[in-house]
């Protein structure tokens, strides 16, 4: 998809259809998909500006003078970016964080990074709860962060949270040692999956690849 040049615009329509079909099969509402894709908006704004700045061939659309190269580059970013974000949203909506980590492990991401990510996943709630409780405690004593003059207090809270988390880390380590930890976390055991599952999982990528090749051959 990324390798397909933007001039082969038919391919991108096919890609979009593919993503939508996949989300329909996965029973994800298109609105959910779009809502989660809103994160992309700031990047699109950049791309929209591109046709107005550039060099080379110019042409007019109504009152606007646009650069051809800029327009193509902008369109390319919008199309590829949107499709990329939609795919990512599709993945994160259908797959739990736990399974994603397991996948990364199998893709040979260094084990230390997978472990860090999985500890983060486990403790992010604990720490954000703690942060929330500190906020409630501050506000219960009449504190409301309104401006720069309150940054000092917020910074102290952040420091306290950091130290608490650090100490928790030490306690967790003690608990790990007590259960015989010697530096290696258990590797998750591989689950065997059938050919069917593989085919289903690969179907999207294969179709996308075919579209890409096809348009280049035809075009």
């Amino acid at each position, binding site marked *: 998809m990324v390798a397909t040049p933007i001039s082969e615009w038919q391919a991108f329509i096919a890609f979009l259809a593919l993503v939508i079909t996949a989300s329909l099969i996965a029973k994800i509402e298109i609105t959910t998909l779009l809502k989660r894709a809103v994160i992309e908006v700031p990047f699109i704004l950049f791309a929209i500006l591109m046709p107005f700045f550039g060099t080379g061939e110019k042409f007019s659309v109504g009152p606007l003078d646009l650069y051809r190269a800029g327009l193509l580059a902008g369109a390319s970013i919008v199309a590829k970016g949107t499709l990329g974000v939609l795919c990512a949203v599709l993945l994160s909506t259908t797959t739990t964080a*736990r399974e994603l*980590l397991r996948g990364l492990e199998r893709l040979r991401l260094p084990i230390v990074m997978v472990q860090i990510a*999985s*500890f983060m*996943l*486990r*403790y992010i*709630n*604990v720490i954000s709860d703690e942060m929330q409780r500190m906020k409630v405690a501050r506000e219960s004593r009449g504190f409301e962060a309104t401006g720069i003059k309150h940054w000092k207090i917020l910074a102290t809270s952040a420091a306290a949270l950091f130290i608490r988390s650090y100490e*928790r880390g030490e*306690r*967790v380590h*003690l*608990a*790990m*040692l*007590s*259960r*015989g*930890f*010697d530096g290696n*976390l*258990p590797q*998750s*055991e591989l689950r065997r999956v059938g050919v069917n599952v593989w085919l289903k999982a690969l179907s999207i990528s294969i179709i996308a690849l075919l579209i890409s090749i096809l348009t280049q051959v035809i075009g």
Partner: protein
Amino acid sequence: MTTAPSLVITNLAFAYPDGNQALYGVNLIVNQGERVALLGPNGAGKTTLVLHMNGIHPAMQGEISIAGQIVDAKDKEALKRIRSKVGIVFQDPDDQLFMPTVGEDIAFGPYNMGKRGAELDAIVDQALAQVGMSEFKDRPPHHLSFGQRRRIAVATVLAMKPEILVMDEPSSNLDPASRRELADILRALDVTIVMVTHDLPYAYELCERAVILSGGIIVADSSTESILKNADLLASHRLELPVGFSLS
């Protein structure tokens, strides 16, 4: 198989690196199958003592042995065996449950002991059943209530088939029902238990014997009932029964 006491502590002393001395010569013997309450005010050195039992703190002076085997913090291999025999349940279950799911967390200890595959699965299932939480195997710990997390924390050490279960404040932060459920689970276990607490009624409910650790030494060692009836003894070590509670 062994008739040696589960825990023998002889003349144990310990000072923190900053010079703060926590233990001044502790002597304690806990026999197999006993349930002993380790009572004491805050700062008496209870947690420090617990961390000696599996060699996290090396003994500076004196000696500890678990089921006849001396805890030597320098011998890594022996330490591994000791740690499989001493199951410590820490006070905050969030410190103890660090894996993404309950099942994986319980598997952590036995995995480190070299268990794999179907054997590991069987151990996990059994430990979950012992604390009545079988249906929670694939749940992440942060979705559970505090009482449930405490029970899972107990299961994580039961999975290591410990000779002795050491619990730091097992009843803290539990609502009355969770408290009773945990007591039922502990009573049903066929394992030596040392329970660090200042919840005196809970100690009375579960342990036939109690010791008081105060100022870094054991100052009393007797039946829980006689210790709790001795109001002067309790008061001199900052311990008190809750208002309205009396031993009949």
